[in-house]
């Protein structure tokens, strides 16, 4: 396949619906880690709950899509509280493992056989997104500039998802440039000091945990709508690590970090994948190609950090102080 084609596909991926979904989740992570310093390694858990919120709402309880969304948000809030109330007092690295564990337990429970009536266990859920696409105001067809084009369904999804992203960015910006955000950043540095100044660090941590979790939940919900299908095993811990990579690539504690990191990462991944696939098959055998592709993703991550440790728009000075 020629280079133009590769670039088009990569570009489509970078601005496409999946990228938007990931940006949402990364915005949540940025609130958690970037600004508050909470090592949340369970963001995928929020996505899981959010995604299943919609699906369960629509499929199991027969609610409307919008109530499904409310359930998503509700589930994310619930998880944030369940996770937060007991664990936010943990040391940072302990919290990291605790969040991973909770997310993983959630996945295992959602896929367990006893959860079948609610989640359809390992079979996952389908057919809950019709309401969303029925509400699509964009006439069907294909829209695009040049070779980059999207179907009306994709476009509808992208409009909603990127719309949420815009709201998320706006919220991040407003919050973090306000005294509220200052307290949050203070907590990142030293919770005890903040408490000694009369701020209820616990409550702030819960607030941000809920807020970031809601973004994770919305991301999950949008992902569910995009795929029109859900399976518990797509919410493996690795997803969180990709989110982290995107956040750090963009630059933590920057409003636009999540957007940049995510789109650049998706672009690279897609370009890479396409290039490999466009090679004649005799260069790389079938068996090895998949493995090597994943290995290359790893290599890209390593190189990105080596050459730009603070991220695309990160602040190197802050990073240096962080270590010393």
């Amino acid at each position, binding site marked *: 396949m020629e280079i133009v084609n590769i670039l088009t596909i990569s570009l489509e991926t970078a601005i496409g619906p999946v990228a938007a979904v990931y940006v949402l989740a990364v915005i949540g992570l940025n609130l958690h880690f970037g600004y508050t310093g909470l090592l949340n390694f369970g963001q995928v858990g929020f996505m899981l709950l959010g995604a299943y919120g919609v699906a369960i709402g629509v499929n199991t309880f027969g609610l409307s899509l919008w109530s499904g969304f409310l359930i998503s948000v509700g589930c994310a809030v619930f998880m944030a509280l369940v996770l937060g109330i007991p664990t936010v007092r943990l040391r940072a690295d302990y919290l*990291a493992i605790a969040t991973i564990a909770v997310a993983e337990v959630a996945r295992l429970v959602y896929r367990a056989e006893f959860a079948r009536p609610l989640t359809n266990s390992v079979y996952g859920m389908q057919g809950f997104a019709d309401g969303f696409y029925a509400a699509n105001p964009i006439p069907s067809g294909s829209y695009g500039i040049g070779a980059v084009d999207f179907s009306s369904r994709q476009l509808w999804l992208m409009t909603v998802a990127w719309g949420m992203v815009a709201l998320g960015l706006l919220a991040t910006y407003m919050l973090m440039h306000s005294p509220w955000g200052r307290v949050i950043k203070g907590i990142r540095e030293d919770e005890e000091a903040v408490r000694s100044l009369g701020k209820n660090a616990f409550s702030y941590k819960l607030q941000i945990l809920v807020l970031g979790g809601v973004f994770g939940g919305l991301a999950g919900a949008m992902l569910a709508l995009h795929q029109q299908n859900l399976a518990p095993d797509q919410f493996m811990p690795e997803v969180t690590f990709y989110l982290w990579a995107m956040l750090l690539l963009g630059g933590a504690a920057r409003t636009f970090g999540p957007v940049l990191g995510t789109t650049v990462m998706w672009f690279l991944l897609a370009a890479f994948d396409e290039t490999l696939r466009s090679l004649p098959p005799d260069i790389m055998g079938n068996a090895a190609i998949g493995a090597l592709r994943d290995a290359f993703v790893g290599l890209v991550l390593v190189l990105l950090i080596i050459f730009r440790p603070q991220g695309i728009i990160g602040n190197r000075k802050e990073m240096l102080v962080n270590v010393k």
Partner: protein
Amino acid sequence: MRTYLVTVPLAVMAAMLAIPVPASADAGDGESLQGQISAPESDDEGVEGIEILVSQDGQEVATATTDADGNWEVELPDAGEYHVVLEEDSVPGEYELKGPAGPERDVTVGADKAFTVVYPLAPEGEAEASDDASSEDPSEDPSPGGGEESAEEDGDGAAGAPAVDSGDPFGEQVINLTVAGVLYGLIIGIASVGLSLIFGTTRMINFAHGDMVTFGAIMAMLFSWVILSPGVDAVLSGIPVLGLVNPLVLGTVLAVVCGGLLGLGLERFLWRPLRRRNVALIQMFIVTIGFSLILRNVLLAGFGARRQQYPAFRIQEMWSIGPVSMTPRDLSILVLAIVVLVGVASMLQFSRIGKAMRAVADNRDLAESSGIDVNRVTLYVWGLGGSLSALGGVLLGLNQTVYWQMGFHLLLLMFAAVILGGLGTAYGAMVGGLAIGLVAQLSTLWFSPQLQNAWALAIMVIVLLVRPQGILGRRERVG
């Protein structure tokens, strides 16, 4: 539970022979219905004289009566659907029909097929209880209940087992699972000591640790293949000492060396340069993710996706030590793991280099200022961590199977073990590993095995809530 097999290993063979020769399927041409009705205590002893009625579309096709061995057979005219009824009146008084399926069955017999219809019997009066057990949804009926009952009613005494019934099956299962849990826990412990050490000295969460575990296991596998390959084998058996050594022992040693070298190489050529450039820890964490992807997939490409077991360690006979039974393989894992763990913990606690490692963990600059060559110590830590993870991999591979994701699948549990034990404590990984291993295994007494990881992780979270600093960790003072 078949303890008797364990107490007398040779009985394994006897037991195999004792299993009844199945009534032959696919016997002859043409369609037929058949079955064997045996007495509840014994699969051998048939029950004679039970009548079976076969009909099709309400028309009687044939009847049959069980012979002395309990066998019955009905030739059918054609493939198709038949209705089979067992005359309950013909069942001898001391037995009754067991199970929810009841005396009447509708069966579909394929062309040229002999279809077997099963009518299990139970001693009079006991059928009710077992009806209840099996009528429950089996998935909601965890093993111990079901296991207990079936163990009692089947008896399976055919092999002439002494005292099968005297042992409490649930108790035995507890013992079995405890042993398995301890073993599993020690393996997790060994594999995660390195993680704990590395985290301790560099504050780095090494996400690639699981793949380093896999690396060790696969290296040992490759080496033992090489050693077993005819040419090398011939050479080695020529050398007096090496000839006697099990190939895996040599393979393990080499794998541990390779693991160590991998660790050393990583520190020297990746982490040290990154640290020099003041790359923050969280960024390094992403690098470990990247490296983990690379290593895992290179192993996949090189080794393939299949599971393998170490040659010459596949199936072993159980040894029994009191109520506990385990294979010699598992016993050696147990012993080796304990020795290594205690060794490492004492090294950390008492030796000079161990103290230096802890000092570096606390404060790199100050350690440097005390005359400790921090870079060298970090190098040692990575070397040691790498070798221990490789050893953990070999042990896990011995106890289970070797495949490209084995360590990766263990990773979360290793993290849990390290955290649970308390970071930076010498015995932390050991205690944490044991706790995780035991919880994972024992949880299956009550819950489905598919949730065993969930329980292990949940326990970790719960313990952290009570002791945020881990089991052995100590709280830091404020102000």
